[in-house]
């Protein structure tokens, strides 16, 4: 059976909807792939050592 332009468009649309539904599910679950490498703010602040005031030179 020869594919028709109509079938090709329908298949592409269905695939698009499946991928869209999958990504929507990921985003709703808090796993936005666009933010995959970012750390929650709290975790970042725990990993950085507290900044110490530098030693000071002054005339005495």
């Amino acid at each position, binding site marked *: 059976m020869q594919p028709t332009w109509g079938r090709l468009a329908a298949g592409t649309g269905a695939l698009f909807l499946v991928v869209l539904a999958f990504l929507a599910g990921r985003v709703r679950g808090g796993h936005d792939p666009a933010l995959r490498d970012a750390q929650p703010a709290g975790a970042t602040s725990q990993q950085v*050592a507290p900044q*110490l*005031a*530098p*030693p*000071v*030179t*002054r*005339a*005495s």
Partner: protein
Amino acid sequence: MIRVEQRFPSMGTEAHVRLESEAHSAAELERMLSGVRSLLADVEATLSRFRPDSELSVVNRDPRTVVELSPLMAELARAAEWARVRSGGLVDATLLGDLQRAGYATTREGLEPAPLDEALRVAPPRRPARARGAVARFSVDPTGRLRREPGVQLDSGGLGKGLAADLAAALLPAGVRYAISAGGDLAVGGPGGSWEVAVAGVRSGEEVHRLRLRPGGVATSGIQARLWRTPDGRYAHHVLDPSTGRPAWTGLLAVTAAAPSALEAEVLGKTALLAGPERAGAVIAERGGVLQHEDGRIEVVEGRPVVRLRVAA
């Protein structure tokens, strides 16, 4: 990374010691810090001119021209001799009599300095300081004896602080990163790269610049911290022009200098302060520093870049 840190009174001002290490325990670092503190106390006990029983005071009262010195006192005398040569005669540790006549005979620890702007308003015309024409000669022989012309007395001043910071740094084993400040003269070094050191502003006391330093030293010489009103209504400070024996008013309030050691930084800072605004930048050009001008300008002098040669095997 284990870190210990302590501030304590020392040499009429404040010492600040920070030690860091990944190779030593906290207890070991505490012991090292205790050793640093002891050494600074020894330096003060030996070299303070405000303690009548210090070796410096005893030597200065001694009328003899040849005097045996302890190793620490000999170090100071050698440092003073070297500083005079290094500074072209501007850093002169034999001006003790002039300093006392200017009004700095007793410690000014805990005393508020006189108002800077009022002192600047009535100060003499600004000019660079100059070396003395007739140098008061002294030297230390290899056996640690001071040989001097009659009447030569030494002042430890800033040299003692720079020397103390360097000697304290020399106590520490490899693997310890350190910043040791003896009254603002700092020795910095150890593993872990460069140190950042804040330069305090003369007028505000707040940070005016931050220097990134290679291992070595940094020191600030300035006129404001020891500034007083004289009985005749004028003002004096402790940085003297060797050519006149009177306070130097050059147009600079303070100079911060970086150098391979705290002692050399102290000498360079004072030399630049005395040399005045025209020449100060050149004096501290090797490792850089900061000039604080009377008009409030903060002039940063960049040090020369480090050139590393890599030789192919």
